[in-house]
């Protein structure tokens, strides 16, 4: 059954918690750092064979013919499959459900308001290759080397076609067409907001500032490349897939669709995952292919991507071209905002989450009464894009916080005072923005004050002088952010309290490094009034986990804690009835507190485990596992994590080299369940944003359309020695939307990082005439920007 929980909560009082709020060490770490993790490639089955993909070397090419006759005769080769084979076998396509569809999401449409053409995702294409690295054929052989050898002998007759990598080029007349169904490549075009009110506000404004920001494409590079092990059981007709993801349940349904089989015949196993950041949220063709091949060959089939393959074919992140305009009154009051957000979805639409989530947040943390956003998207001959850590929000916050700094400078306002004047105040909460989105709670001004104090903002001039004496320049930056956390609305918990003194919680979220085994146990233990060490968290097997929305959009702690809360509330009612029955008294005569059921005015009491023993005893020959409860809930109300960042950078103007010397992050993640885990998330989240600001870029050769940042030699991943020691603080404002008051951690700091770092670099270089720097602000780019400004 599904309960629509009451969505207005006075967050549970702090005194109710013993474990929640404490920096409990992660219980999963010992397993993970001593080689006992269970990652996909750790699973091997007797008789297992190996799959290798033949990938397109062209960004765009017609597939005229695939000749695998020679390859098929090579030693150890079991099969070679092409798109025609998939079609002949009646396989379907991967339905990615790319359009965000919770009640809080703005509804994206095709140009003219119709249904969006997604670009069908067959397991192997029959017509064209649409990006470098797209799988064209699959070789299955006894060994990896034999598969690689044979793959080199699969002859694909490609007819290279004109390519287009840049969305701004793809929308021009005469650009190469990626899908015949969408000749001009524009697959999404939707406007939100009040055009008339926005136009009127701009017309009356004293000042209008306009800027354009390309938010470059990056890739997630999780430590564990994507992998899949497929098995088929002839007797039962069931498929089993081991594959790392953010939630096995969603994948099960989509893989079933691609194979055209009943979802009940698919079992997906996902235990430890070595990093995700969004790229593993979506189904990959190899998942379907290894299952299909396992059935056809009658042996388990393993695929493991190399790092090179990952760089070419992992779903990538960002790639938004945003043009924004800010209208201000003479005194600096923000009047209106316009944004045109053009997303590069790549060769087909895998997800519109980045575009959809960013659009209603273009006005960020500020009181901007009128606003309009055009959310549109174009196909290109590049790897598809997908949600990447803080999907869609860093892009729009970057544009907003950059244009505010620019406005302050051009119009002579102090950038902090200008922000303070226009920030949504805590008195205005819950605040509904110009797109009808309601921010649940927060104290933005307090966060800003905390950050300014921690950064010693006012002591900047003295530090800057000292840095000048060393021949460098110091710059400082500030950025506020608000982001949204929505995610799949349904979650389920199955809880068993055993007579042996253990509590088992089965949940449909999927940790990919976030420490759920620790933090979910803390929540369960405190809500039951027991020790956290008695709680086991179970996930990752779709035969056990029947439902669940997975981990994305910062939903896991919020949904899991709410489902756990609901389950325990239900279980309490049942437990009181059980105790009343045993004791022969009315339920009203039983009180509950601190994990104990007590006879009012009497001496009799039970704890949870004693009740579990009674329940098992009463079951006789039936289910003796103890107290059991299943609880599903739906929660459609989004929450809005928020906060800010301040940073300082030293810039060597001769070489363009930038070093971050100070970084302060203040985040309102709602209630902090485990500050140790949240701090770790904050650190990683800052590094993710710093990587985009300074180094990371999926770079395409402008002459050939070839991706050139295909390894860590050219792709600048952030490293520990490039980061300062972070200064972090929480401004904990519990959300009223869920019982624990949880918002979300782990994505907010990324959201602010792009803007705050670029703001600081521009601040350092302002008197050289630099007023913007495209990302990544590599030394070369910084030097070039200085040079361009100097003329």
């Amino acid at each position: 059954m599904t309960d629509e929980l009451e969505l207005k909560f006075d967050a549970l009082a702090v005194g109710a918690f013993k474990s929640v709020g404490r920096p409990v060490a992660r219980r999963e770490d010992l397993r993970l750092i001593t080689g006992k993790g269970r990652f996909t490639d750790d699973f091997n089955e007797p008789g297992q064979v190996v799959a290798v993909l033949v990938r397109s070397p062209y960004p765009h090419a017609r597939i005229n013919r695939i000749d695998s006759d020679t390859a098929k005769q090579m030693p150890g080769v079991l099969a070679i499959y092409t798109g025609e084979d998939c079609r002949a076998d009646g396989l379907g396509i991967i339905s990615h459900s790319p359009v965000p569809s919770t009640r809080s999401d703005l509804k994206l449409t095709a140009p003219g308001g119709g249904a969006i053409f997604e670009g069908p995702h067959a397991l192997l294409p029959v017509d064209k290759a649409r990006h470098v690295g797209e799988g064209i054929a699959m070789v299955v052989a006894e060994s990896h080397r034999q598969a690689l050898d044979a793959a080199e002998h699969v002859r694909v007759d490609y007819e290279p076609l004109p390519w287009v990598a840049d969305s701004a080029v793809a929308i021009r007349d005469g650009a190469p067409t990626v899908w015949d169904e969408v000749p001009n490549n524009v697959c999404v075009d939707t406007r939100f907001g009040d055009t008339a009110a926005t136009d009127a506000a701009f017309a009356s404004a004293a000042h209008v500032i306009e800027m354009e920001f390309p938010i470059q494409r990056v890739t997630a590079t999780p430590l564990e490349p994507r992998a899949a092990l497929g098995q088929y059981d002839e007797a039962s007709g069931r498929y089993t897939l081991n594959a790392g993801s953010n939630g096995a349940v969603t994948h099960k349904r989509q893989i079933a669709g691609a194979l055209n089989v009943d979802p009940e015949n698919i079992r997906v196993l996902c235990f430890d995952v070595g990093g995700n950041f969004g790229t593993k949220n979506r189904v990959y063709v190899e998942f379907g292919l290894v299952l299909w091949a396992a059935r056809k060959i009658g042996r388990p089939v393993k695929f493991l991507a190399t790092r090179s393959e990952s760089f070419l074919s992992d779903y990538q992140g960002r790639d938004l071209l945003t043009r924004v305009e800010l209208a201000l009154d003479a005194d600096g009051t923000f009047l209106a905002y316009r944004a045109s957000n053009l997303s590069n979805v790549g060769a087909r639409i895998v997800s519109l989450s980045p575009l959809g989530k960013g659009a209603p947040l273009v006005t960020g943390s500020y009181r901007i009464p009128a606003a309009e956003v055009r959310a549109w998207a174009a196909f290109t001959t590049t790897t598809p894009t997908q949600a990447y850590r803080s999907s869609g929000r860093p892009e729009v916050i970057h544009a907003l916080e950059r244009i505010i700094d620019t406005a302050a400078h051009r119009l002579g306002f102090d950038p902090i005072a200008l922000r303070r004047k226009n920030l949504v105040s805590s008195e205005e909460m819950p605040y509904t923005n110009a797109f009808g989105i309601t921010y649940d709670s927060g104290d933005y001004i307090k966060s800003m004050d905390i950050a300014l104090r921690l950064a010693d903002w006012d002591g900047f001039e003295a530090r800057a002088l000292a840095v000048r004496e060393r021949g460098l320049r110091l710059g400082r930056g500030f950025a506020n952010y608000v982001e949204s956390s929505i995610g799949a609305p349904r979650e389920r918990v199955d809880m068993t309290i055993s007579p042996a003194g253990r509590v088992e919680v089965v949940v449909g979220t999927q940790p990919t490094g976030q420490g759920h085994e620790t933090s979910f146990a803390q929540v369960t233990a405190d809500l039951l009034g027991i020790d956290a060490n008695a709680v086991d968290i179970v996930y990752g097997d779709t035969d056990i986990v029947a439902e669940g929305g997975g981990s994305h959009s910062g939903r896991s702690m919020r949904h899991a804690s709410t489902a756990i809360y609901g389950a325990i509330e239900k279980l309490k009612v049942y437990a009181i009835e059980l105790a009343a029955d045993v004791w022969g008294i009315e339920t009203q005569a039983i009180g509950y507190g601190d994990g104990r059921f007590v006879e009012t005015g009497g001496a009799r009491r039970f704890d949870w485990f004693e009740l579990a023993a009674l329940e098992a005893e009463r079951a006789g020959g039936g289910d003796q596992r103890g107290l059991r409860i299943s609880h599903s809930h739906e929660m459609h109300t989004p929450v809005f994590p928020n906060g800010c960042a301040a940073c300082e950078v030293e810039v060597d103007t001769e070489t363009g080299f930038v070093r971050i010397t100070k970084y302060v992050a203040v985040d309102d993640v709602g209630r902090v369940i485990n500050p140790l885990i949240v701090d770790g998330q904050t650190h990683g989240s800052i590094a993710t944003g710093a990587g985009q600001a300074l180094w990371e870029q999926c770079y395409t050769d402008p002459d050939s359309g070839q991706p050139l940042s295909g390894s860590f030699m050219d792709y600048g991943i952030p490293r520990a020695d490039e980061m300062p020691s972070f200064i972090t603080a929480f401004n904990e404002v519990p959300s009223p939307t869920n019982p624990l008051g949880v918002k979300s951690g782990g994505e907010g700091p990324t959201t602010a990082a792009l803007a705050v770092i670029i703001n600081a670099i521009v601040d350092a270089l302002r008197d050289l005439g630099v007023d913007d720097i495209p990302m990544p602000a590599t030394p070369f780019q910084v030097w070039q920007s200085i040079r361009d400004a100097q003329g």
Partner: protein
Amino acid sequence: MYPFEYVRPASVEEAIGLRRADAGAQWLAGGMTLLPSMKLRLAAPSQLIDLTDVEGLDEWSIGDEHIVLGSMSSHRRVAEADEVRTRIQALSTVAAGIGDPQVRNRGTLGGSIANNDPAADYPAALLGLGATIRTSQREISADEFFKDFFETVLEDDELVVAVSFPVPRRAAYLKFRTPGSRYALVGVMVAETRDGVRVAVTGAGPGVYRATQLETALAEDFRPEALVGLDMSPDGLNADMHGSPEYRAHLTGVLARRATAQAIACEN
């Protein structure tokens, strides 16, 4: 990787004999470039002749005017040796700045110069310091040794045995790292040797080269101020996502100036 034979000779003569017997064979020193290339199937030697056990390739001879380092000397050994640091600190700096600790434990002097990666550090060190390369056949000056992109004058069956570095009056090496790989986007060795001022540049072009314009200026006046206002030509320099020819030319001037200041500061 493709399949290959693996042999481990004990002497230079044996190693050369094996190489002559198999045109597809390659020497294996530290393998820091060769092995990753093989794993990516970009190199397919029929045979690897592992030089680890070859006698004499790790011998050093340290004098006041020259230090001679065996070709199989690991970067770590060179970086940590007091006898190197006290004589040519710039050489210690070069070795200590290559790759990461794993690479420095495996990678070798001979492997690096024979490979002649256009962004490698050792070629700049040899060319800047005016070193001499001793091979199984002859002695070659650094000026002769390095050819184009990944190319040297070494014959197929010629093995680098040692490198002799003259101790300079003063020298310094500075590199500006590429963000991803941390290889030299540009690396500059500035040295005042007994035979004059030498400036060698790596990373900027298709191979290591001497910046004669800078050498001339420094020969007249060995101070950073002597290089101010010199416009380095971008002609022939590399263009890629990490830097334009103009940026590389500019960095060459900046690094040369800073290296000169450093050479003066830590004169030894």
